[in-house]
């Protein structure tokens, strides 16, 4: 179904650059379709309105930070009793500083909270989102916690996040290690020119 669907997307949506990603040999999991980020709205619209597949339910939007790119995943479904089907749609954003995508709230209302969570955790901005705010962290939170290079802020409104007098020695070692790992990560990213 995937290759058929991806060629259908390519023929109907120009610049979609849809390609099938199969799980690696010997590993479990489902295949997915990767599309270009600029065409995400058009592809979703096609997948929803298309008669044959008509994915009328958006199950989840999630994101993954892979350092070289931020991947946003859409799980679409149709709960037709006779022919239930689902699809994992992926798109990769290479701009880590200001990642942007078009919102699909116009197609599925369920996208509203999911996109807000994706913004909250990974900092992906969604164009044309009706209510673009953080959803879990407070509005004045700094940084995006699910990014690989995330550094916890020292204070949140005069409350210390890791108070020194409440950390035991092993704990402090852990924090030092974590800080080192983060520095290494930063260095690696600089070397790669990001």
């Amino acid at each position, binding site marked *: 179904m995937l290759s058929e669907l991806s060629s259908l997307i390519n023929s109907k949506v120009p610049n979609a650059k849809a390609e099938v990603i199969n799980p690696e040999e010997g590993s479990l999991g489902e295949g997915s379709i990767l599309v270009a980020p600029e065409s995400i709205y058009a592809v979703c619209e096609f997948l929803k309105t298309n008669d044959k597949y008509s994915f009328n339910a958006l199950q989840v939007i999630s994101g993954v930070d892979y350092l070289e790119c931020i991947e946003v995943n859409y799980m679409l479904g149709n709960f037709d009793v006779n022919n239930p089907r689902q699809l994992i749609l992926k798109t990769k954003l290479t701009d880590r500083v200001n990642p942007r995508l078009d919102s699909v709230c116009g197609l599925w209302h369920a996208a509203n909270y999911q996109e807000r969570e994706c913004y909250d955790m990974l900092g992906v901005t969604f164009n044309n989102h009706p209510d673009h705010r953080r959803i879990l962290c*407070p509005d004045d939170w700094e940084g995006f*916690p699910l990014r690989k290079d*995330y550094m*916890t802020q020292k204070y949140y409104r005069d*409350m210390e*996040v890791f108070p020194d007098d*409440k950390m035991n020695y092993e704990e402090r070692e852990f924090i030092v290690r974590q800080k080192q790992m983060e520095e290494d990560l930063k260095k690696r990213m600089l070397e790669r020119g990001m």
Partner: protein
Amino acid sequence: MQDGIVLAKADELLNWGRKNSLWPMTFGLACCAIEMMATGASKYDLERFGCGAFMATPRRADLMIVAGTVTLKMATRVKVLYEQMAEPKYVISMGSCANKGGPYWQHGYHVLKGVDEVVPVDVYVPGCPPRPEALIEGIMTLQKKMASERLLADKWVKNA
């Protein structure tokens, strides 16, 4: 006791009344709150200790049971709720999360490391979650503490 006269010290009489009508605030944050609800329900029946009337507003409550994970976002609200309560007021910190961050104390970027960072705590109840018996013991400990307080003597007579 003769001829319908009871003799008691004003402070002790007050304390006896206060400690047996401790009204907690309806306020739960995470999984520990489920255990707190179980404590208030029929099997463990907090009302036996005069403490089962969960108040819907902090203005009428004497006791705040911080039952659950205090995130940094919630911490500001916990502080406001505490300040809205009328004196004298007491705080029980229930569960490891409220005591010291619990399971989130190493990696929890969003969790306050102990509710005592924002409000003064009278009794800590350890456990994850503490069993209802543990919470009841915490409340009884608080009642003992209240029985030994001398509010009139300390606050009014001294400052008179």
